[in-house]
């Protein structure tokens, strides 16, 4: 089995990628503006619900329950979906899922597909696999279209082109749609996208969608969106293929009540999404003639086996943690080297890959807790980050110099005598660097601190020395 999360296995580590992105002032400005707008909207629609905390708790409990009994609910979904005329396929990893999609498209002799709302397809690298098989994918979600045409990578879970402003989008559209002129008002850009996409909707006979939620008892699939392009994709083509990560399951149709409140308010700051599509199998004379669901594992069952961190799979991909994260807000999503950026990406990406790759991601956080505070299903992201850091260290993958410093510090701190000696040693060691109680330059890794900040020098007398002298009566 080969689990793959986009190009994450080959991505540079977070500090290096971040350093590069921090120099891009346009990107930082765009990310800042966009996350500020979404945060403000989210805060106001969350505030107006008196039972928001109860809703979060309900969301958490439903997800936790479903994941504890996932085998049952997956089979229930398969049965219900099949009864309603759908076909259910099981994919262990990225390659299996890609192969199933390609076979289904080739069986229809189709050479093009339209796609909507499927970050999971980015996870498994579907577009590249389709192109290699001679099939052209067209992204139809506006933001995904901007990313695809710009030969770019998504930088946000919900708003993949959040790092682009309208002038950049205008430039991309003009170049890639072959337009000689285009206004820069949002209406102008939307009209250009509409003209470009309408023709695809009417021509292409196969669509690939993702799913926000899958309902086990009815075998239904749900996507929520703002544009209606998803509605086009799931209703116009002759064949619809829906790719679903197995963690997207919820037990009953009634449970949608909870998630269709939590998701739009957390994701885009709306009370309800403009388009909520829920479909079950196939319906005679309405919608696609052929409907396939691919249930994807790609590392999810191995995450599920981890007691400390399995809550990661509760995630409903609302992106609220990204907008709240002070680290994400500085770097944008590309620094995370994965389709899953921000705090949730920092815990999900390394786990999907069994901690083999992306080990710098659990450290890409100041543990400020803003993510946990906004998470609609109460994933304790800071705690999971700490657990994953523990795994990095226990696998022996932490840098040698760090391990040496940590072990020495632990040795010194275990006994008060050793600690006092270490304090005295620090006072001597700082002599070459200290002036007037301030250290302005330090060598090696500690230079990262003094590059932008002064460091308080160790004062002559520690608190414990002061206390000792005081109790001896030398001081008042």
């Amino acid at each position: 089995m080969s689990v793959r999360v986009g190009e994450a296995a080959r991505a540079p580590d977070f500090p290096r990628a971040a350093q590069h992105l921090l120099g891009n002032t346009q990107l930082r400005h765009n990310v800042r503006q966009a996350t500020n707008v979404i945060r403000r909207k989210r805060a106001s629609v969350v505030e107006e619900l008196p039972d928001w905390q109860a809703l979060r708790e309900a969301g958490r409990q439903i997800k936790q329950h479903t994941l504890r009994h996932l085998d049952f609910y997956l089979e229930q979904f398969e049965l219900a979906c099949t009864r309603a005329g759908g076909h259910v396929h099981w994919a262990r990893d990225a390659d299996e899922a890609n192969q199933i999609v390609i076979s289904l498209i080739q069986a229809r002799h189709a050479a093009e597909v339209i796609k909507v709302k499927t970050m999971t397809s980015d996870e498994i690298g579907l577009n590249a696999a389709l192109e290699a098989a001679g099939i052209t994918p067209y992204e139809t979600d506006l933001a995904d279209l901007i990313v695809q045409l710009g030969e770019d990578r998504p930088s946000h879970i919900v708003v993949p082109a959040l790092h682009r402003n309208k002038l950049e989008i205008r430039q991309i559209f003009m170049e890639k749609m072959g337009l000689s002129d285009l206004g820069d008002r949002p209406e102008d850009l939307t009209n250009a996208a509409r003209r470009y996409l309408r023709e695809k909707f009417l021509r292409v006979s196969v669509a690939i969608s993702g799913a926000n939620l899958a309902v086990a008892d009815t075998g239904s699939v749900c996507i929520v969106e703002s544009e209606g392009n998803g509605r086009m994709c799931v209703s116009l083509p002759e064949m619809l293929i829906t790719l679903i990560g197995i963690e997207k399951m919820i037990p009953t149709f009634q449970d949608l009540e909870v998630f269709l409140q939590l998701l739009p308010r957390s994701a885009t700051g709306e009370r309800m999404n403009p388009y909520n599509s829920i479909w079950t199998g196939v319906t005679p004379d309405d919608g696609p003639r052929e409907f396939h669901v691919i249930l994807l594992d790609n590392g999810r069952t191995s995450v599920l086996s981890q007691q400390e961190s399995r809550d990661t799979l509760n995630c409903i991909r609302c992106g609220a943690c990204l907008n709240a994260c002070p680290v994400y807000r500085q770097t944008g999503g590309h620094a995370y080297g994965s389709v899953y950026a921000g705090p949730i990406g920092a815990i999900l990406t390394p786990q999907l890959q069994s901690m083999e790759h992306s080990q710098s991601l659990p450290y890409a956080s100041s543990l400020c807790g803003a993510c946990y505070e906004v998470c609609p299903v109460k994933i304790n992201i800071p705690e999971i980050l700490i657990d994953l850091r523990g795994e990095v260290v226990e696998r022996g993958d932490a840098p040698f110099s760090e391990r040496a410093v940590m072990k020495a510090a632990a040795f010194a701190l275990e006994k008060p005598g050793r600690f006092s000696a270490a304090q005295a040693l620090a006072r001597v060691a700082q002599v070459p660097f200290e002036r007037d109680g301030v250290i302005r330059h330090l060598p090696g890794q500690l230079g990262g601190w003094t590059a932008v900040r002064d460091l308080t020098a160790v004062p002559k007398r520690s608190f414990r020395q002061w206390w000792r002298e005081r109790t001896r009566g030398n001081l008042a």
Partner: protein
Amino acid sequence: MLVSLFITCYNDTLFPNTGKAVVRVLERLGHAVEFREAQTCCGQMHYNTGYRREAIPLMHHFLDVFQDAEIICIPSSSCVAMIRDHYLKMAAASGDSAVQDQVEKLLPRVFEFSELLVDKFHVTDVGAFFPHTVTLHPSCHSLRSLQVGDKPVQLLRGVRGLTLIDLPEAAECCGFGGTFAIKNAEVSAAMLSEKTRCILDTGAEICTALDNSCLMHIGGALSRQLAGVRCLHLAEILASSEKGEVL
């Protein structure tokens, strides 16, 4: 009531004045203070960086030192958060029910400095005089883990002569994050520059907080910028009096 001070390792080493200030405030309010010299560190740096194995003996040591303390006062919300949020889990992982029991009995006796004054002693006016303009950085652990709410603000409002100025974007992290500031030095610096911009916007002379760790980071940048703004732990403001006592 006898208050046992856990000064924390970095306050002991780098910010002894904060410890002296805590002692002064508590004694002024009529409480006896003890300092158990066997104390060292809560284990936060190790635990949060992934060195769980190294953090465990530090937890045991802390539990042994403070086992029979009546009240434990800690002038650092991140260290209190370490104890409250992680000790039970660490104890459970050890599989030793006696240790779990020890932690459970200890937790209700652990107070962050502002919690101790406001919740336990029901005091918001500690008799301080501090004729300066001050802004408060509500550190992440105090805000989101301890949820101290407006306790530090209540205490600052009780200080005569003090003008408190609201900090814009106050709830944003300053970018310290312990070893984060070293391991992700550039991102930390970017976060810090926003925090210092907000602090400078207030025009305050002094930035205060419940954590010297954040203040060391923020103050380090303000010092490098020669910004003319100083960082001071809340305890040091509360310890100031009209007598002009010098710590």
